[in-house]
């Protein structure tokens, strides 16, 4: 799979209203970009150019040697936990253009929209939750399937979801919900896939480490915790747990 050429674009002020020079460079992971300049903002390439869904900034930059403009959307790390994790230095997010992602839990439309930008038109994002605004947003995005259902009824939406590469879950209630998460993993996550769970950091055990809820509840070799990132966001301390499922020993 050929990787896209890294853009080194220079802003042409006559094409856009922004007068300051902004460079947008790829940042660590495929599909994720960062602005260089006055602010360092994380952004993704906009799948639906011209639409700013949550009032975020859209940046138009011009490709070198090409008249076409590329539009990027800013990814706010204070509102999206995945963005915060990237900025805090997670080793790998395992999501790249073309992957399939299952998004569960407290659905945040902001994260979903950026995920959909990330995976591009080849990938798919399946969103499961009780969310009204996401249904409206997903209307313009052909790679987001919205399922209005509680994620612990994992069987109910089995007709709508294919095997996914990554499961991303965001919930801040009790650990009991992990029992339901496991079923989702076993149904839909492919062998060798990864899961990322973001919970409140009060799930710490006595040594101060975040319990990976899977490895504790299910002492099987299927779930292997890779890393934990502490995210000190505005709403309170959260943590992101990254793990793998049935990693093949290659």
């Amino acid at each position, binding site marked *: 799979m050929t990787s896209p050429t890294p853009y080194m674009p220079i802003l042409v002020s006559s094409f856009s209203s922004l007068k300051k020079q902004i460079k947008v460079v790829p940042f660590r992971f495929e599909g994720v970009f960062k602005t260089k300049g006055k602010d360092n903002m994380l952004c993704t390439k906009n799948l639906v150019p011209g639409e700013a869904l949550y009032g975020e900034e859209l940046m138009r930059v011009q490709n070198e040697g090409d008249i076409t403009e590329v539009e990027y959307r800013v990814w706010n790390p204070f509102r999206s936990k995945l963005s915060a994790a990237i900025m805090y230095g997670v080793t790998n997010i395992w999501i790249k253009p073309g992957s399939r992602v299952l998004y569960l839990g407290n659905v945040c439309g902001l994260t979903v929209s950026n995920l959909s930008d990330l995976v591009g038109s080849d990938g*798919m994002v*399946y969103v499961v939750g009780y969310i*009204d*605004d996401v*249904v*409206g947003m*997903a*209307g313009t995005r*052909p*790679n987001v*399937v*919205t*399922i*209005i*259902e509680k994620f612990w*009824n994992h*069987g*109910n*939406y*089995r*007709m*709508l*979801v*294919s*095997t996914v590469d990554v499961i991303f879950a965001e919930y801040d209630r009790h650990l009991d919900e992990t029992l339901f998460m496991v079923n989702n993993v*076993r*149904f*839909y996550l*492919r*062998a060798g896939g990864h899961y990322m769970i973001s919970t409140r950091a009060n799930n710490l055990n006595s040594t101060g480490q975040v319990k990976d809820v899977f490895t504790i509840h299910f002492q099987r070799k299927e779930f292997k915790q890779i890393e934990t990132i502490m995210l000190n966001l505005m709403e309170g301390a959260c943590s992101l747990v990254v793990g793998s499922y*049935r990693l*093949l020993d290659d």
Partner: protein
Amino acid sequence: MSLYLLYEFASGYALFNCHGIDEIGQNSEAARNSVADLTRFGKVVQLVAFNPFESALDALNQISAVSEGQMTEELQNFLSLNFPSVGKKPKFSLGVSEPKLGSHIFEVTKIPCQSNEFVLELLRGVRLHIDRFIENLKPGDLEKAQLGLGHSYSRAKVKFNVNRVDNMVIQAIFLLDTLDKDVNSFSMRVREWYSWHFPELVKIVNDNYLYAKVAKYVDNKSELSEDKLPGLIDLVGDEDKAKEIVEAAKASMGQDLSPVDLINVKLFAQRVMDLAEYRKKLYDYLVAKMSDIAPNLAALIGEVVGARLISHAGSLTNLAKCPSSTLQILGAEKALFRALKTRGNTPKYGLIFHSSFIGRASARNKGRMARYLANKCSIASRIDCFLDKNTTAFGDKLREQVEERLDFYDKGVAPRKNIDVMKVAIGNVDKEEMDVEETPVQPSTKKSKKKKSTEMDVDEAPTEPSTKKSKKTKSKDSISNGDVATNGDSTAKKKKSRKSD
């Protein structure tokens, strides 16, 4: 004992036969290993039958049934088509994802079902490789099917109602503004253009729409004579003005236009008239739509201001979510942030200013009225957004409250307490519901006249609604039909309630 697998997905139902389970053994570990490789898995599991869904509606029915663990007729037909009839000791079993569905299948068709870990592992493999198994599925077809089906499933869950889409109102109000500008600029153009021929007309006829009509009627001013006067009087409405026009035409300084030019001017004048008429129709459409999606807001501050608020906020839900202080200054953001930065006085009203109440308040009380009105608008918008019923009872009551507040500032008349007014409003809403449920019963009373037992039926009717009545009704009985009929009734009842207050 052979094992079959039922796999249901967005494109249809598929049935697989597992031959090779004896080879890999009946445990999940082995199944897991075989899944990874398609060729190996292909030997284990083979496609027996595939039944695609016939239409989107069919797919929606299937997924609704599947999510509840029920088997539909289509699934039953599919299974009975592919399985031999089941005797007392069936020689095969069917693996399903969910035990609930399995038990229902067993109840109806006597096909034994299982859904243990082993089956789940095999189904995982099927899910991973499904697009290779089915030949007709091109890459991307499955995703599109999932998209469409997911969308309709979600809509069905949310009970999406097409009539209550607020987007129509937002577009309509934008179009109304654009139309106003356009009609205005076109009218100016007509006036200028025709003035080359008949300059005096501009000063006599001031109204744009009327000017276009007159210009079209007058055509060539040299042909304007006394016999055209009656028609002109009909158009203008004023006999003096019509006579003035005729006089001016005779003594006009304007140059003559060739017939072709005149035709062009006439065509353009016709265009302007059509646009003006369309604007009227659009306004009526806006009023109708507002009464569908936000009747209480429209009853409180009027359709146009209400529509502007909704379009400024982005949608009705956005408007409902924002606090009333935001609603008060929606539209005055520039002044607000400027004042916040320079630590000056923040604006007191935004779009709300255009409602009639602010104009009627004295200068001292404009700010207070604006705040009070914004509070009530917030309430109205929230009711509109989240109440399933379509009623203006709350909006009317809120409007009364605002009027009372105005009186209070003017004359010192104490307004009613909010809780009392709201109780009456809720009562009105329930009464409206009762009226609706009574009206369908009335035809039956006419029928029963033949049986000569009218009194019996009329007595029975009121008891029905009272059992169904509940305080916060979220009934799906759309009372939009009943609304027109009950409006007269409800106002009469309100008058009654006012007397009792």
